[in-house]
């Protein structure tokens, strides 16, 4: 409100630039947003309220329409991927809980066979959500876990299968290839099933988030982003930069560590919060 309660001079635009940069929009997207706001100002927008609304509209236009998860016709598969520690396993626990609440039959696949106690962690979430987890021994082939989980999905008339994968840095070619392999197994064993490939992105991520989105997208077609840890003080503006660069929609936001701390992404509310 401090920003919007004053005359439209150059310091206004400088301060706005600092606000957007501080929110992790990055220099490129910030410049584009300010250029668009200047156009609107030239077209006659002058009051602080109108300015704020114009700015929110510009951000919402970049973020796109609210995008739901595509889960029908059942069975659907959701593959959850992203860099280390971003919030994948926790997000899956929350999703499982939500789907069960909606009356869907859910199955989880513990395809992180690498990290210490990853399988145990997912199993605890499975118990909390009241859903079964398909798992193998630690160190086994993740593709074999996915394969088994899909057979179980068909056999047990599951509505949604959610696959947990190991965290991986997008710069590691062998790990990105492993992800491609998991995607191939899903497409081959569940042909025609709706598949959501969700990139879980930590809301505190800076400009590296763009590289993450690009490289994961290059490995397999991403259907959307889960912006986790938005309950912190980071604004998550990297999601705007990614939408601007790749048109990749945020579908869900993580707002805490509890099982119900997951909400559909609301572009307008997000844009408003960004400007606060």
């Amino acid at each position: 409100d401090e920003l919007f309660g004053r005359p439209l001079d150059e310091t206004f635009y400088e301060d706005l630039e600092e606000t957007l940069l501080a929110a992790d929009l990055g220099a490129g997207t910030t410049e584009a947003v300010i250029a668009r706001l200047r156009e609107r100002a030239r077209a006659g927008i002058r009051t602080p309220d109108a300015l704020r609304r114009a700015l929110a509209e510009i951000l919402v236009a970049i973020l796109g329409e609210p995008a739901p998860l595509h889960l029908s016709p059942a069975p659907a598969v959701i593959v959850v991927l992203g860099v280390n520690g971003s919030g994948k396993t926790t997000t899956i626990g929350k999703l499982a809980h939500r789907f069960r609440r909606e009356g869907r039959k859910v199955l989880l696949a513990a395809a992180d066979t690498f990290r210490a106690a990853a399988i145990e962690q997912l199993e605890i979430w499975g118990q909390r959500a009241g859903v079964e987890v398909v798992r193998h021994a630690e160190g086994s082939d993740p593709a074999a876990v996915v394969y088994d989980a899909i057979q179980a999905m068909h056999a047990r008339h599951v509505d949604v299968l959610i696959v947990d994968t190991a965290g991986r840095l997008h710069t590691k070619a062998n790990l990105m290839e492993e992800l491609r392999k998991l995607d191939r197994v899903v497409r081959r064993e569940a042909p025609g099933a709706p598949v959501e490939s969700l990139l879980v992105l930590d809301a505190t991520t800076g400009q590296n988030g763009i590289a993450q989105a690009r490289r994961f997208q290059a490995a397999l077609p991403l259907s959307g982003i889960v912006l986790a840890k938005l309950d912190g003080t980071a604004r998550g503006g990297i999601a705007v930069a990614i939408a601007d660069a790749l048109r990749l929609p945020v579908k869900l936001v993580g707002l805490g560590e509890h099982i119900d701390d997951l909400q559909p992404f609301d572009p307008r509310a997000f844009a408003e919060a960004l400007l606060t």
Partner: protein
Amino acid sequence: QLQTRLGTVFTRLRGRGTLSAEDVDVALREIRLALLEADVNVKVARDFIARVREAAVGQEIWKSLNPGHQVVQIVHSELTRLLGEAHRGLVAAPKPPTVILLVGLHGTGKTTTAGKLALHLKKQGRHPLLAAADLSRPAAVRQLEIVGQRAGVPVVSPEGGEDAVALARRALARCRELPGDTLVVDSAGRLHIDEELVAELARVREAISPHYTLLVLDAMAGQDAVRMAEGFHRAVPLDGLILTKLDGDARGGAALSIVATLGRPILFIGTGERLEALEPFHPDRIASRILG
């Protein structure tokens, strides 16, 4: 690459005739972009650019044969200076055990780093112990137990109805009786704005008086990192940072920003998921990385 971009900038400027002092600002805009792209905090970048301008004007770089190269030198040396000294190793407390407390946001690599530190200390001939003080994350204790097993270091895990504070206190006592000479305490990820968990951290610190309270920071952290670090620092005074996931391509500007603002050094860097992937901090290498 910054050097190439600056080279292009100065070539274009020279195209209009001789370079002048004002042309420095065009070059400085490129440097600012590079810093922001590297997640250097906006305010830290602004102060940094002002100092670079001063040095560039002082050296009259527009008169040099290769001003682009010279500006990069100035930036690199100023970044290196800001990042501080190379880490010379953890100093053992005069009266053992040395207590190290790891803190930070969720998922930054604390549990993994605890194991790495324990292994590093063991290789140095010390006798470390690990304390599993994360009682909230599912299977966190199990994760540290596995990591401890792999490092060949004993782990103190919660018993009975112990909370994090009681566990930490008991681990310290256990360390003394074993006898171990270093206690590495893994804590739960938490937000600097979570009053309850911040208060818990302060109570843990009170119970074990760490010689090193280290903020474990993800190299890909963005602009909010300084505010976050200040929040932690207010709750438990930080002695240094461990920067993780440097095996990726995140530039690490958030780390520079925290060092510049809090005046606390980076001690170690994490360069992978294996327990051996811990290296001492070298300022010039991180400076080059931030520059891209």
